[in-house]
């Protein structure tokens, strides 16, 4: 009996994790383009727009099979993307208002349809609202095949139009001058976000899907300087957060999967923002401190030389109080550093005077070099 139970859980876990990996990869890859093209919040509109699509798919198919629901969501997403485009280009509304209007109206229509279905007690409608927040445990093997097919289509399109998508993302003006059909490519790239949304329906749900589009890409951006790297990293981050969130949600019955996946992805973003080389905020703080120390070191060294020259002797010892007066607290660590490098030497404190520092011959040479460099 225990073995049977274990098999069952294993089975559920395997399905859910595979679903999460598929979702993470696709949303990471497509999200990269959305984030780079500053269309992050359009993803929010497309994911909310999936709700009426799901309901219409359900009403047409008369049941809860995944394929019709997905097709409905896909169609609704495409219509929503088109409407946002139309409103933005042919009215005086700013993009944010177009996105917000389409998002809320589509979701409202979705709510209306959802209550329509619920109030009629249509067969098989139970759990239709689990698409709001996702329920990974409900994924069936047949669903996985559909999700895998959609992922393959999405990744295939990206691979096929890699060069085109890249140029349209970074320099649409140049792409237009090459005679490419930029609006078509842009519309394709935008509506492909709906593919990621469709795969995420069961895992994350429509409400939080926007985070899966933005977060892996935003995290990957911190580590990558090339589109290739960014896409690959985003896919990895997406898969990792998807898996982590799913596993935690299966620990306890009744935990919605979506929020946990989103929190995992947010964690990845936070780590990336802080620690990524070059762009990470902590990394940069350390870098700044190093640069400041290097500058202070050079300044102290050169000043020691010039003070000494003013006394006609490059080995002349300057009192530390003098340097402290100029540099404040910065002089001390700089002097210690220089002493470690063997460029300066302290004279023992004499009666009535503080520590005095003089340049070693090596220090004089280094200071002269810096001075010459500065004058060039």
């Amino acid at each position: 009996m225990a073995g049977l139970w274990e098999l069952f859980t294993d089975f559920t876990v395997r399905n859910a994790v595979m679903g999460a990996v598929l979702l993470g990869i696709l949303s990471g890859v497509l999200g990269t383009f959305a984030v780079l093209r500053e269309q992050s919040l359009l993803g929010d509109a497309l994911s909310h727009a999936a709700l009426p699509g799901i309901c219409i798919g359900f009403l047409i198919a008369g049941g809860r099979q995944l394929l019709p629901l997905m097709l409905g969501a896909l169609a609704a997403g495409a219509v929503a993307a088109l409407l946002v485009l139309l409103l933005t280009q042919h009215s005086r509304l700013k993009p944010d208002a177009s996105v917000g209007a389409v998002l809320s109206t589509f979701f409202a229509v979705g709510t209306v349809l959802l209550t329509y279905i619920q109030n009629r007690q249509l067969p098989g409608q139970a759990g239709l609202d689990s698409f709001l927040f996702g329920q990974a445990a409900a994924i069936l093997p047949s669903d996985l095949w559909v999700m895998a097919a959609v992922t393959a289509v999405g990744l295939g399109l990206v691979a096929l139009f890699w060069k085109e998508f890249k140029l349209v993302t970074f320099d649409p003006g140049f792409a237009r001058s090459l005679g490419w059909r930029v609006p078509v490519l842009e519309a394709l790239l935008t509506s492909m976000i709906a593919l990621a949304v469709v795969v995420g329906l069961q895992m994350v749900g429509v409400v939080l899907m926007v985070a899966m589009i933005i977060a892996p890409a935003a995290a990957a951006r911190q580590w990558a300087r090339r589109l290739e790297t960014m896409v690959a990293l985003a896919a990895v981050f997406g898969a990792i957060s998807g898996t982590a969130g799913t596993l935690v949600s299966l620990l306890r019955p009744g935990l919605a999967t979506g929020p946990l996946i989103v929190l995992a992805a947010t964690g990845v973003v936070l780590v990336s923002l802080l620690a990524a080389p070059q762009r990470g905020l902590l990394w940069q703080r350390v870098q700044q401190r190093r640069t400041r120390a290097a500058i202070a070191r050079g300044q102290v060294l050169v000043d020691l030389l010039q003070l000494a020259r003013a006394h006609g002797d490059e080995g002349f010892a300057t009192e530390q109080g003098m340097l402290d007066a100029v540099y404040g607290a910065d002089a001390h660590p700089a002097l210690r550093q220089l002493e470690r490098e063997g460029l300066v030497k302290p004279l023992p404190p004499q009666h009535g005077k503080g520590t005095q520092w003089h340049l070693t011959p090596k220090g004089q040479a280094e200071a002269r070099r810096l001075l010459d460099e500065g004058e060039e």
Partner: protein
Amino acid sequence: MLAAFLDNVDLIIITIGALVGVAASLLGTFLVLRGSSLYSDAISHSILLGIVLVYLISGEVNSPYQVVGAALAGVATVYLSELLGATRRVKQDAATGLVFPALFALAVLLLNLYARDVHLDEHAVLLGELAFAWLDVVPLGPYEVPRSLLTMGIIALINALFVTLFYKELKLAVFDEGLAHALGLKPRLLFYVLLFLTSVTAVGAFDAVGAILFIAFVIVPPAAAYLLTDRLWLVLLGGAALAVVASVAGFHAAMWLDVSIGGMMATVCGGLLLLAFLLGPRYGVIARLLRFQRQRTQAHVLMLLVHLYNHEHEAAAEEESGPPALQQHLRWSARRSRAVIALAQQRGLVTLSADGRRLHLTGRGRETAQRMLDPWERG
């Protein structure tokens, strides 16, 4: 009279919807014009975190602390988003899209873990249930007043007061933030007050219409009104009026179809925006298409005059000046040349000979053609 009103459930529901709509669209006008309307999306999600946290700490669902806590959570979302955007590690839109789902996810998780039994479930938060809003009443003098009605009435009043008192400042802050700042009007502070009130409105509204439908009321009516007029005060009034229309129509449609009332109200809002987009008198798609057509015909009339003028004294004048020549030489369709000739005749610029084969310039037509060819009359 008040007692009769309070007994009329339908009217109460419509009034609550209308109050949410008016309160939201008054503030939404400025958010839409400023290009910050998606902050309402962020706010309406993350107030849930404030509500849940206050609930977990105080154990109360309907305390005033809750309103303040939730409203602060809403403002904090925007502040965090702008802070994240200011690090320039991610673009501003992505920053917003990172912060509010995270806060919302946290709230849903906390609900899942600790508050499964309260009425605060996440579906109600998203969708609201206007149909039951009249069940929850509070005593007010001799009457029992639905809580949502009272809250939304007060909030709508506060918003209307805010917009009226700070009309000038808000207007300047939206259209020229730099100037507002230079005049010492503190546009940033004003913006955050606006966001705070938006959060308060969202908290008040979320029981009734839910988070997402609240966004519809913030963005859609002002957006529709903005497509209809150029005057700020008309956008404000028009947005509020459209919200009221949407509430009334949405309620009846929802009753008829037996579906979510709030959802239907927001759907009607969207429908109104679509109508404004298509049929608006000046910026509507159809109006602009017609204007484009008219201007094209007007330009073609000028082209016709110049064509006739150029060939007036040539040997081929006879051949060049007939309607068939227009189709062949100017490559106009038969319909197009008929429309152009009709307009030119109507304006008294050309006359058509009795047999319909030759066009003649009138004096005014000739003058117009000359002015076209030599606008500065240098001869």
